[in-house]
Every structure is written in structure tokens, then in C-alpha cells.
């Protein structure tokens, strides 16, 4: 669905590249997470893929269209949910979606259905200028589905949303993906990436450091250790046990049989920890979702 080979981009049009030698492939039906801190090159790459930025160097095709010579019809196949909501504040929610639906050449979804889907039922006739930031964000997200996109670009889709609504948005993403829609998810939120993505790419300083599935990354970089807190006699004790070494496995089994366990945690690495380990840098922003 997306093919990127040797992508470079420089805003100053010299050798100061915002994106350097980026290459990856996304097959149809995959949720691909593009992860990195602010300024890493995520938005630049996404801008080139969506045609908002011109392609300077490299080969890029999206939904079967060569980005070097973008055809207007390509936009019938892609949808984009922006990080910063961008809807007409002087139009109502319904008018916004109706207006946008008329700009496409393909059958579009019912605006009212989309409004309901993102939990804005009853607000369809209110001007967007009166909406909260989260409501605007949900409307922007709903708008990105209006043309039934085959390729769906999501830029921080849960930013600024409360946990319940964020969960709803994640459900919608999964549901759409189950219908065969390919998703390009740009985020610095490792939790949502971990939950949703089939594969993730770590990008930093304009270069992709690693591409793999969250599961493989955890297996490769996670510590196979269990932390146990237990009561031994009258004292509270803590211990860390390897799940690989036989000696530790036996000790853990003994504690489980004879002691009262207070807490027990596996030391599986989070994506954020793996990111730091791989890139040597933090993500800058971390948020719960």
C-alpha cells in the first residue's frame, strides 16, 4: 500500500536533511506505527506521503500512486486525521462533514453516522467554534473517514482525549483495520502504538533506526525477569528471578509454594524503554491513553 525507498527531504534545500534515507514498505491491511520524538521527521515523512510536502529525493508510492506526479484522484483513496484539529469553526459539525464530503469523487459516508460514531450525537447542529478541543479533534478524526479511505493517515489520533473517548477512537481504528484499511499511525505515544500497531518504525534525527512488530521488540529487548514481593516469616522481602536460568526458576517456584506473595510483576520492556535503548533518546512526551 505504501512503498518508500531512499527518501530524503531538506527544508533549506541543502544537505541539512529533516529526513534521510528513509525506506520502508507497508502492506495492505497493516497498522504501521511511525514513532519518534518531536522533530524526528515523522511529520515531514507523513507530509510527503500525503502530498502536502513536495518529494525532493527518493521513490514513494501511496495506494498505487507515484508521489512524484500526484494525481488528484489519489486523494479519493486516502484519509488524514490531523494532530491539530482543522475544521471550520463557523460551520456546524454536520455542515463541516457535508461540505467535505462534496469535495470527493467517490461515494462518501453518511455525516450523521460518523458524528454518532465519534460520540458527538446531539452536537451536529452546533457551530464548531463552540466545541471543546477534544470535540474538534473527534470531528477531525470523523472527517478523515468520510471518503471510505483505503489508506488512512492518523496523526496523534488520541491526543487531548479523555481515556474513555481515546478507547473509543482506538476501537474505531481497529474496526476500520479489520475491514482491510491500511493505517499509517504517527505518534509519540508508545502505549497506543503498542496496542494498535502490527509493526512500528523508530525514527530519530530523520533516520529510521528500527522496524519490527511490538511483540518481537519486547522479546528481543525485554528482560525475562519476574519481580516478587513476599512475606518470609514476619519480614517483607523482595526478589528478582530470571525466567530463563534454572536456578532462579527453582527459587521462584519454591517461593510460590511456601511464601505468601504480596506482588509479582514480569519485567517485560515497554516500547518506550525499547525506544530509549535503541535510540539512546527519550520521546520527550509521554501520555497515558
Amino acid at each position, binding site marked *: 500500500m505504501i512503498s518508500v525507498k531512499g527518501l530524503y527531504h531538506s527544508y533549506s534545500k541543502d544537505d541539512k536533511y529533516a529526513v534521510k534515507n528513509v525506506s520502508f514498505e507497508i502492506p495492505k491491511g497493516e497498522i504501521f506505527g511511525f514513532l519518534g520524538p518531536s522533530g524526528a521527521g515523522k511529520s515531514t515523512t507523513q507530509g510527503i506521503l500525503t502530498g502536502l510536502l513536495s518529494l525532493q529525493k527518493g521513490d514513494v508510492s501511496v495506494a498505487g500512486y507515484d508521489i512524484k506526479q500526484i494525481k488528484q484522484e489519489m486523494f479519493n483513496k486516502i484519509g488524514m486525521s490531523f494532530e491539530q484539529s482543522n475544521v471550520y469553526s463557523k460551520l456546524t459539525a454536520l455542515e463541516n462533514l457535508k461540505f*467535505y464530503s462534496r469535495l470527493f469523487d467517490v461515494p462518501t459516508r453518511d455525516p450523521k453516522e460518523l458524528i454518532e460514531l465519534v460520540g458527538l450525537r446531539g452536537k451536529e447542529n452546533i457551530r464548531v467554534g463552540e466545541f471543546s478541543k477534544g470535540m474538534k479533534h473527534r470531528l477531525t478524526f470523523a472527517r478523515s473517514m468520510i471518503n471510505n479511505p483505503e489508506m488512512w493517515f492518523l496523526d496523534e489520533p488520541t491526543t487531548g482525549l479523555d481515556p474513555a473517548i481515546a478507547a473509543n477512537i482506538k476501537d474505531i481504528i481497529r474496526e476500520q483495520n479489520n475491514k482491510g484499511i491500511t493505517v499509517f499511525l504517527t505518534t509519540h505515544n508508545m502505549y497506543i502504538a503498542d496496542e494498535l500497531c502490527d509493526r512500528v518504525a523508530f525514527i530519530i534525527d530523520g533516520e529510521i533506526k528500527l522496524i519490527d512488530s511490538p511483540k518481537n521488540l519486547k522479546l528481543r529487548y525485554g528482560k525475562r525477569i519476574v519481580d516478587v514481593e513476599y512475606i518470609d516469616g514476619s519480614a517483607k522481602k523482595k526478589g528478582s528471578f530470571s525466567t530463563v536460568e534454572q536456578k532462579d526458576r527453582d527459587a521462584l517456584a519454591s517461593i510460590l509454594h511456601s511464601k505468601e506473595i504480596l506482588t509479582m510483576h514480569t519485567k517485560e520492556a515497554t516500547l518506550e524503554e525499547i525506544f530509549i535503548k535503541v535510540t539512546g533518546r527519550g520521546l520527550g512526551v509521554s501520555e497515558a491513553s
Partner: protein
Amino acid sequence: MLNKIWTIFKRDVKVNFREVMPLYIMLAPLMLAIGINLITPGINDTTVNIALIEGENPAQEQCLNEFAHVETFPGEAEVLSRVKERDSLIGILPGDNGYYILAQGNEPESVVEYAKLLNVFFESGVDIENSKASIVEFGETVPPVKKMLVNILLLMIPMLSGMLITLNIVEEKADKTISAINLSPTSRTAFILGKSLTGMMISLVTTVVCILITGFYNVNILLLLLVAAASTVLAMTIGFIQGINNDDVMEAVGSMKLVFLPLAGSVAGYELLSGGWQAFFWWSPFYWSYRANNIILGKEGSAGELLLYTAIIAAICITAYALMLPRIKKGLQ
């Protein structure tokens, strides 16, 4: 593409009618048109108003009625009271030695002289039939001041439409919606044409309404619209550029106001300078628009002359539009 242009046009019109500033810009020409009607008299209102005592001299009343607007009052005191009011009304009252003229003293001299003359005609028994003079006229049917004010108003209308485009672009920038449009199968050309259609339609409709309000029913409205359309192309270009260059509504409108300077200069140049100096304004489409409107409103000139002026306006405006189009497209990225 036409469907998308129409969609963008409808959205802009809807938003313009919902906001105070665009609504004010759209209504301002209509209010000015009403204002022009109020401050400049129509051709039939230029007569002299005379006050007489009711039934005092019916023959005199009948005679004066043919040449002036006559009001009658029950007595001398009432005529005196009426004459003291703010407008120019002359009383003709019986005195010891025939009739005397009663005036406030601040009336135009010509009005007082005209009233005196009418009284002399009546006393001497002179009638219109006694004149052997034939009438030769220049065909002017409209007061020159009114024609000039309406002409200036017609020049302002396209500029105000340009302001609406500026406001619409600034709104798109504030809402960051241009990037969303760019990710739809709507070309920048369609987007620009949709916005331009808003400016053009509002300009043309306002022109027609203003012409009707100011009473120029018999002029060639199609020719006026042709001139207005040509001028609107320039206004749209300026509107787009100002919209792209400004992020704030007040800043944008402030910048747009500067356009009224060459407009005022062109009008002043045409009205005040002698023929040789007028060449200094040939570059200005406002100059040619004013000149063309002047001919249309006065029902003068030939169709060829008008088409030449319109072609000059269109050439200047379309050249400016074509030169600025790449900059406009880049600004909308």
C-alpha cells in the same frame, strides 16, 4: 470541478452571512446607495418651493404651480412659520404695494431670484407660449453630483468583494482548513475559482442592487456589470494576496483599505486634471472603470468606446491576476 467550485462558493456565502464583519462589508454599499439618494436630489426635486396663502389668489396659485412646487397655508403667520424651517422655501405674500417675497436669508440666491421672476411673470401675464426660444440640451438627465457619487460607489463595490475574499482566506488560515482541502481531490485552481466566484457574484449582485436603489433604471446594466466584472478580477487578486499575507482579520482589512488610495487618486485625476495629464492614470484600472461607468450612467458614448475601456480594464486586471496566480497557489499550500 464545477460541482466543487459551487460547493466552495456556497460555503463562503453561508459563512459571510453568519459573521458581522462580512455582513457589514456586504451591506455597506447598499447603505451608501441609500445615503446618496438622501443627500443628492433627483432631477425632479430641483424645483423651487413656494408658500402661498390658501385661496388668497387662485389664479396666482394655478400659474405658479406650473413652474414650482406650491404649498398653501391658512394665513400669513403660518407661511412665516413654514419659511423659517430649515429647507429652502420662499413665501410670496400680498403687501401694501403688490406681492412681496419672504425668505429666511440663507437660501441660494438663484432660488430667490427664480421666485421673484415667477412672480413678475404672473404679474405681467407672461406665459411659456410667449417664449420664442427653442431648447437645445446636452442630454444630461441625472444630476452630476449624484452620477459621480454612484460611480465612486460602483468602483468601491469590487474592492469590498475583494475584502470578503481576504476575510475568507484569513478564516481558512485561522481554522487551518487549507491543508484539509489540499488532501481532497479538489485542485487549487478549483479552490481559487470557488473563492473568486464568491467575490464576483457578490460584486455583481451588489452593483445591480445599488443601481436600482439609486434610480438608474434606464442605464445599460449589462455594460455596467461587464465593467464591474473586469474590476472585480483585480479586487480578487488583491484579496487573495492580502489573505495569504495576513493572519489577522483586522490586519487584513487594514491592508486592503490601502487599495482605496489609487481608487480615490484615479477619480480625482479624471475629475480635476486636464486632458494631457490624464495619461498619468492610464495604468489604473480604476481610472478606466470610472471613465466607462461615467459614460454608462450618463447614457453617452458608443458601444465601441465602452468595449475598448472594458478591454483595457480586463487586460490590466487579468495580467495582474496571471502574474500573482503562482504566488496565490504557493500561499495556499
